[in-house]
């Protein structure tokens, strides 16, 4: 027995929610109105309308046509492989197999799962998986997207310079005078100018050499998120030489960033020159560094072709020019590797040394980057 259009739409919305779309009850009702307003089934028209109604950002906008076709036009789609998350979770496996029931309308769904529960479970599972062990392309993409979203949350932890408040130390004269007019010139409700916590000026230095290749897609998205969260951030990548890529990371299309970064990384077989690359930052981009504001985020496993003393010397010079150095190393997530494996000469100048191999470690890294300088945490 085939389902009614309303049930199909409700099921489609549920599928989209499982794919990370934030669709509320209001949008579902509007989607039903859209379907009912089209008694003659014009799929192209319905797709256009539902796309505007159910998408919330560019990422969803790009993914929507494929998801729509997969559900409403299953015959035109090849069977998709199960994601890593689905393989780990039997409930997700059932959901994945229920895809493609839009116009077919005969497949029975299993038990009705609460989408929030499934989503949280999936995220909790994925957040602890070492990125290099993920072989499923969809799961990798999902982790990369979440890493960028995590990094962008930095913006909520650090805020801008000043704002007008009802309490504070320094009176905002113009606002107070303007407000006093309603009280015949009496400043009954003075307004104050308060300093907001200072946003760190981020300088991201990412190692894209051969030894980091397994983590580069994840860390690239993470850096891109950090760069978009902080207004005056700068980004560099290095292998045996340094490249400034701030503008590249501002590119909207993540796949385009990856493609151009791959093109830039033709020399990756030549080794890793961390010390030399840091010296390049100090020589050629010194104006980007401020001892009071700059937080340098190094993303590297620390495997360097340069001498350890050179690395120590470069880090010491860099440390004098910046407020803090946060070093994120995916190698620290591996068994048997600890902070002590980074050369002593380098460790002496690093304020925070953290793993960066999965979502959980990146989440902690965001917290540490936003935090005021304090005791060393490694």
């Amino acid at each position, binding site marked *: 027995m085939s389902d009614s259009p309303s049930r199909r739409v409700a099921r489609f919305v549920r599928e989209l929610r499982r794919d990370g779309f*934030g669709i*509320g009850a*209001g*949008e579902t009702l*509007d989607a039903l*109105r*859209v379907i009912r*307003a089209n008694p003659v089934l*014009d799929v*192209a*028209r319905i797709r*256009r*309308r539902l*796309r*505007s*109604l159910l*998408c*919330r*950002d*560019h990422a*969803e*906008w*790009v993914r929507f046509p494929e998801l729509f076709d997969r559900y409403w036009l299953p015959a035109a789609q090849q069977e998709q492989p199960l994601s890593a998350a689905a393989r780990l979770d039997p409930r997700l496996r059932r959901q994945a197999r229920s895809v493609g029931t839009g116009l077919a309308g005969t497949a029975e769904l299993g038990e009705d799962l609460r989408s929030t529960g499934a989503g949280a479970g999936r995220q909790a599972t994925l957040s602890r998986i070492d990125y290099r062990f993920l072989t499923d392309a969809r799961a990798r993409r999902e982790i990369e997207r979440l890493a960028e979203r995590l990094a*962008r949350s930095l*913006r909520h932890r650090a805020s801008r310079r000043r704002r007008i408040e009802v309490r504070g130390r320094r009176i905002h004269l113009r606002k107070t005078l*303007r407000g006093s*007019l*309603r009280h*015949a010139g009496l400043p009954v409700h003075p307004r104050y100018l308060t300093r907001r916590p200072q946003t760190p000026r981020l300088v991201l230095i990412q190692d894209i050499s051969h030894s980091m290749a397994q983590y580069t897609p994840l860390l690239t998205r993470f850096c891109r998120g950090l760069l*978009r969260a902080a207004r005056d951030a700068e980004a560099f990548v290095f292998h045996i030489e340094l490249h400034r890529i701030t*503008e590249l990371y501002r590119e*909207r299309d993540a796949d385009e960033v990856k493609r*151009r970064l791959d093109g830039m990384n033709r020399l990756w077989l030549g080794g890793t020159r961390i010390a030399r690359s840091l010296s390049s930052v100090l020589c050629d981009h010194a104006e980007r560094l401020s001892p009071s504001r700059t937080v340098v985020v190094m993303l590297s496993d620390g495997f360097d072709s340069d001498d350890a003393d050179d690395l120590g010397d470069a880090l010491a010079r860099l440390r004098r020019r910046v407020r803090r150095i946060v070093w994120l190393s995916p190698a620290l997530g591996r068994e048997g590797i600890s902070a002590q494996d980074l050369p002593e000469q380098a460790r002496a100048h690093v304020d925070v040394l953290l793993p960066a191999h999965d979502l959980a470690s990146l989440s902690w890294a965001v917290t540490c980057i936003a935090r005021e300088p304090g005791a060393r945490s490694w």
Partner: protein
Amino acid sequence: MNDSTMSMQSRLAAAGYVAEDDLASTLELLLELERPLLVEGDAGVGKTELAKALATATDSRLIRLQCYEGLDVDTAVYEWNYPRQLLAIKLQETSTDSLEDREDSIFSERYLLPRPLLLAIREQRSPVLLIDEIDRADEAFEAYLLELLSDFQISIPELGTLSARALPRVILTSNGMRELSDALRRRCLYYFLDYPSLDKELDIVRARLPDIDTRLASQVVRFVQSLRELDLRKKPGIAETLDWAAALMSQGAASLPTPAATLHRTLSCLIKTRDDQQRLQESEIDRLLSRAIAP
């Protein structure tokens, strides 16, 4: 194609805006569901023009609120006309009216200075409200907008709640300078406006510059399309294409001038940053030029 989509497209075309099926469908949905529309896209792709065209196409008034950092309620919603209120108080000193009456008269709409958002909900006929570059405004202002966008009403403590006389058609634009809140996105329809295809851009140039030579229009558009494929900091938008085409027309050109050195003089219409000017060598311009003028 559906009749209503065609009708919206033709109405927009009459307003000088070339819209694809997707966009026309979205605008129909905006009118049907009376929900705000969030339009994202790079600078210069025609987001602001879309609102202007919709106002013309629906024969409504366009009310524009340009957002910026520090935008507050006084500038965006309303402000009491304090000097006029003080004057009224002075004039009423000898009045025999009761204190309540005098107070009511002072806090009446007569002394209210409506700003764009209040103007939009007090219009008798549905206007098009353009909230331009919402990503430039503070998060606090974005949160304030939520009440307006869901209930179309504004609360003024001294006066009460003012509801919309006719629901405005709201278009919000964003260049992606910062991430907008999920709450705001949930209240809006969404459309991502990308750079136009070659055919669409050619249609736009012809619509906006009807006197342009066909060959020049085609070469200009092909040149700009190739330019957008380069790794530029600021890719030229539609406005830049039109400016450049107009500049070439004003020089009496019927096709792109060669050699590249001659062309270079007008390229400031397209290339707006020093980095891009340095990056674009003469040899590169030659290559783009030969692609653009190839038959």
